[in-house]
């Protein structure tokens, strides 16, 4: 007997300006199958998912749900996919905080009785759906009263409502603690036993081994392999994810150098457990870790955004008890945030103002900003970092992502910061700009600055770092030192 796949992609390609996101991909998933999707950033995972949910239309090829192609085109596709039993849970939450859990679960498809909302039945069914995940939350509570982890659980419960044909979970456990992960795994196995297919995007091998039947590995827009999880070794999967990588540059590690920043026993339950590290003058220290491993929390705790439960942060050997972000900047810190658009650039202002904003005192003469000093300071940064801009006054919002990122780094050069914390500095940046950013970072280290380089793109760490710490589940799991930093071993350590 031939079963019809719940979802199938035939010879589909999707191209964006300058990139081929998916290249003649064939993909099928059977009823009741749990399939892990693996691949590094930019491998094509999101595009693959977006083809299935109808958020994107392939340039060539077809997408079939239960053996039938989409009838709708454009905007109507996502609604058609949902009507045909496809559910997706994304990393970014899509709940309405002011509404109750029950209302959120039936968002847009509220249960009605003779024209009125049937709250009693929604609460009843929501409670059952939550119980399936082992949750005893009151469905009439507003979502705003829940922790991020509980919200994620509510999203997952919503996806499992009714009898979906296919559920797509995109890194569902990145905000969850171990016990909750167990519940999610159990629920996934449960719905799979009832015939629902599950696509599970994650890099945590321990979870994948527990719940997935098969795994599909993507790289550079192609499916490298689809294989049974039970037979696959982690090293093989890592090899497939990374492909052959040529060691482009050799880092000779910095020895000596006094520590500019030391962290001892920093804890922030449940995200960070007793982190200790030293960051020396002239050193680039990489932090490798998956989404949810505690990368961002570590930076935030160092910079004083959050108050850790325990631990010491010392600059120049002196412990700093009361840390505020602005006082840390005055001590010589510089920080480039992960989301450049939301937290990095001020799009309407020029490259010049986006540069000198970190320290106006260096471009002002007795309280008056000097246009020539601003232009000179900006030109210094623009030339040193090879920022491609028509003029120093061009609004930064019109620049490419890579050039924006260079300015965001450059503003801390302007401020003469000694300790730079760079959170995913190459995200959304093209290959050429990436290499330039690596050079910039090495150059900054040569001047004696200390750099903490946080990245989820494992294979860039050996390009820039003297030393890499692997963060896993809020702990430092391993330490690798150049020239013995190997992307495959790092990735294996990250996915555990």
């Amino acid at each position, binding site marked *: 007997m031939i079963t019809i796949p719940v979802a199938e992609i035939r010879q589909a390609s999707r191209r964006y300006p300058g990139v081929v996101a998916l290249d003649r991909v064939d993909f099928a998933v059977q009823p009741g199958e749990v399939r892990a999707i693996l691949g590094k950033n930019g491998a094509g995972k999101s595009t693959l998912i977006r083809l299935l949910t109808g958020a994107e239309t392939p340039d060539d090829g077809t997408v079939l749900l239960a053996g039938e192609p989409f009838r709708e085109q454009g905007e109507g596709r996502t609604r058609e996919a949902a009507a045909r039993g496809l559910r997706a849970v994304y990393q970014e939450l899509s709940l309405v905080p002011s509404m109750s859990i029950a209302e959120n679960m039936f968002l847009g498809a509220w249960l009605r009785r003779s024209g009125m909302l049937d709250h009693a039945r929604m609460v009843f069914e929501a409670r059952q759906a939550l119980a399936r995940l082992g949750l005893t939350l009151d469905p009439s509570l507003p979502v705003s009263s829940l922790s991020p982890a509980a919200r994620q659980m509510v999203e997952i419960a919503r996806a499992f409502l009714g009898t979906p044909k296919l559920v797509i979970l995109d890194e569902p456990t990145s905000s969850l603690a171990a016990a909750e992960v167990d519940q999610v795994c159990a629920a996934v196995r449960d719905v799979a036993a009832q015939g629902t297919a599950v696509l599970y995007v994650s890099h945590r091998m321990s979870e994948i081994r527990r719940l997935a039947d098969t795994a599909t590995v993507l790289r550079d827009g192609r499916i490298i392999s689809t294989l049974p999880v039970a037979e696959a070794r982690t090293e093989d999967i890592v090899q497939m994810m990374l492909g052959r990588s040529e060691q482009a540059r050799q880092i000779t590690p910095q020895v000596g150098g006094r520590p500019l920043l030391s962290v001892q026993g920093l804890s922030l339950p449940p995200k960070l457990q007793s982190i200790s590290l030293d960051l020396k003058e002239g050193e680039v220290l990489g932090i490798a870790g998956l989404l949810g491993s505690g990368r961002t929390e570590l930076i935030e705790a160092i910079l004083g955004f959050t108050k850790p439960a325990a631990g010491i942060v010392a600059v120049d050997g002196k412990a700093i008890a009361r840390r505020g972000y602005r006082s840390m900047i005055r001590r010589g810190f510089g920080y480039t945030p992960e989301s450049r658009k*939301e937290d990095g650039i001020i799009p309407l202002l020029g490259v010049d103002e986006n540069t000198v904003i970190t320290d106006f005192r260096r471009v002002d003469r007795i309280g008056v900003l000097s246009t020539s000093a601003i232009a000179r300071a900006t030109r210094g940064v623009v030339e040193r970092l090879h920022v491609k801009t028509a003029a120093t006054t061009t609004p930064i*919002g019109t620049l490419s992502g890579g050039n924006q990122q260079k300015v965001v780094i450059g503003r801390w050069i302007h401020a003469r910061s000694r300790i730079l914390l760079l959170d995913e500095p190459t995200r959304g940046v093209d290959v050429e700009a990436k290499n330039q950013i690596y050079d910039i970072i090495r150059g900054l280290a040569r001047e004696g600055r200390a750099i903490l380089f946080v990245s989820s793109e494992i294979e860039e760490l050996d390009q820039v770092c003297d030393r890499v710490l692997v963060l896993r589940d809020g702990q430092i799991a391993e330490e690798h030192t150049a020239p013995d930093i190997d992307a495959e071993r790092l990735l294996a350590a990250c996915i555990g």
Partner: protein
Amino acid sequence: MTASVITTPIPRTLSGRLAGHVNELGLIGIIVLLYAIFGFISPGFLSANNQVNILRDGSAIGIAAWAQTLVIVAGEIDISVGPMVAFISVLMAFALKWHMPLAVSLCGGLVLGALLGSVAGVLRGIFNVPSFVATLGLWSALRGLALFMTNALPVSFDDNDTLDWIGDNVFGIPVSAVVMIILFAIFVFVSRKTALGRSVYAVGGNASAARLCGINVTGIRILVFTLSGLMAAVTAIMLLARLGTGNAGAASGLEFDVIAGVVVGGTSLTGGRGSMLGTLLGVLAITVIGDGLVLYGINSFVQDVVRGVIIVAAVLLNVAAARRSGRAGR
């Protein structure tokens, strides 16, 4: 490696630069057009006497509008202007009535204005009350308080030569207009040439990024409201000098003209974009429209309708221009 990567300006930025001033150029065109129309249809519109009137009326809006521009550029709004002006003028009138020295009365009024403004600033900056709500509260409370204190009757006081001088003209120009122009110069300077002014643009453009760059976002927010309160107090002095009495019902609807002037001048209500020159032209346009319609003898209720339509049309044009020039960075 040493080659400069700054290329010479290409047409794209040239048009971008023009687009940056399309709004100002357009407003000048509109004002010229208004002068032509009203000069033709409204008797006495072009007379020197009426130009002085326009200046005086303009200064009542303009002084508060300079500070409002910074408030709106910072991504906030202050709707408490009218009642703030009335309340402060009433208190200053009381002080004068009780024979306090003029300098003390006026300075006290300025300090009070700054303090009241900073209340709105603290509510927004520290307690995260939306500025619309914070200043709406002030709007109602100050108007009510002023009416309560005066029983809605004018507060008169002895003649004062200095105050009379402030209400009069020098070399044919109203003193209030001179004050407005001096303050305009100061606000242009602050907004363009000081770290503080640029920080206001940064906070309005992306508060989160500005904070991460080390800018004191809370401080900036408090400061723009403090300035707005201070300018309301200056306006109150001009009003007191002109009317010769403190009047709790005065400056009714002033916040409408002030915000309209700023917005017609091209300042974006979402923050981060706007200019003092734009506001100057916007205030002039609003004043000319009001003056011209009065001289033409249109029903005063219809005047409100015409003003409303013109303001919405101006903002529509502004939004379209912003989208065209693509400076939103999306």
